[in-house]
């Protein structure tokens, strides 16, 4: 397809990935000090007075928190590496929020609940197997790097699932629906891998 043509002197961003980070950087990724903004649509702006977070679906009863209630839940600081399918990886990102383990303590899951779909303002969705959300692997964050999460990066709050490609970390998240059967989200239903493990380079369906 491409000719064997090489542009003299061009190396691209990968040159910045130092040897010291090898082993922490998933295959095919380069390390960036930026925080690129990638969105599938315009930035929503929901007033905090109207913001809610809901867990529903295969539960005994759904639960909804208002902003003040949600941010008063037991919070933690998280320091994680994140990897975007567009090949950048950012090390040691600092977040503050509530873990999914804490949130799920407030509901009674039905035995059949095996998958979750996170949904956001603006219509974005992404699906995650329930086990990938447990045991400290996922959280909902409203602070990034010691400051309130900027709207362009998903503020007021976003889901963060750092062990999967960052398209799974839904910006502007407003709820989680627990399901019996997997329901591919916005990118998963359009050529992207259903699970998205960066360490197995699961970028596209069929990978």
């Amino acid at each position: 397809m491409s000719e064997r043509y090489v542009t003299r002197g061009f190396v691209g961003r990968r040159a910045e990935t130092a040897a010291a980070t090898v082993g922490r950087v998933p295959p095919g990724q380069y390390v960036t000090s930026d925080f690129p903004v990638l969105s599938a649509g315009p930035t929503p702006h929901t007033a905090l007075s109207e913001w809610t977070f809901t867990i529903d679906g295969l539960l005994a009863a759904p639960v909804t928190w208002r902003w003040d209630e949600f941010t008063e839940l037991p919070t933690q600081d998280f320091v994680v590496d994140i990897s975007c399918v567009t090949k950048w990886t950012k090390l040691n990102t600092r977040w503050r929020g509530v873990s999914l383990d804490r949130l799920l303590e407030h509901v009674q899951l039905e035995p059949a609940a095996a998958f979750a779909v996170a949904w956001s303002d603006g219509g974005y969705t992404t699906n995650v197997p329930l086990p990938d959300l447990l045991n400290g692997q996922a959280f909902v964050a409203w602070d990034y790097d010691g400051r309130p999460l900027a709207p362009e990066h998903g503020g007021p709050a976003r889901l963060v699932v750092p062990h999967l490609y960052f398209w799974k970390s839904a910006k502007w998240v407003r709820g989680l629906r627990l399901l019996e059967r997997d329901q591919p989200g916005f990118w998963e239903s359009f050529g992207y891998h259903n699970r998205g493990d960066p360490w197995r380079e699961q970028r596209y369906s069929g990978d």
Partner: protein
Amino acid sequence: MALAWQLATVVGIRLETPHVKSYALELPAWPGHRAGQHVDLRLTAEDGYQAQRSYSIASAPTGAPRVELTVERVKEGEVSPFLHDVVVVGDTFEARGPIGGYFVWEPDATAPLVLVAGGSGIVPLMAMLRHRATVGANAPATLLYSSRTASDVIYGAELDALATRGDGLRVVQTLTRQQPPGWSGYRRRIDRAMLAEVLAGAGENAAQAFVCGPTPLVEVVAQGLVGLGVPAQRVKTERFGPSGG
């Protein structure tokens, strides 16, 4: 006919401002272009890694297999620092184009022309003004051009010359961060009041407007122009994304 990649050769490099360079490219299979169109450039590293960017064509159509691109060096960028710091005359890269049948100006247009540019958004509008001068069009044209400081103004001398040809072109500038002594232009970001003053009596109901630059500027200007009476379908925009650092 699908756009095919071809090899472009750099035949000239000119420094326009401390952060902006123009590149003259020779393209053997160039089909010609219209003012406002752009090219895609593709760079390939030894290991096959590729990066692709779009750049507006700065030159007017001439019939020769050559175009000029004007590129601002974006500090955190991947391609523009390479173009500025590494590329020399004689180098080649893959290019395809011309692209874009929407954001174009044709000289047979008789409507008053309104051009609004922020920063490097001036590039495709300059192609339009250069083309306009070449064909000797004289329907009234107004350019409102926003830059940070006087040293950031691209094509400054050429714009002065075009504005004094007496062919109905008026150039208005604003410098948003710092102005030299004796500056008689505007001193702030483009806003609705500025547009209203600049457009006053410029035949806004019949105008054809082109707006190009950082997305936030384009949003403000496009909405402002429509609010001032320019028909919405006659406001053509080319957003460049977030403003550079």
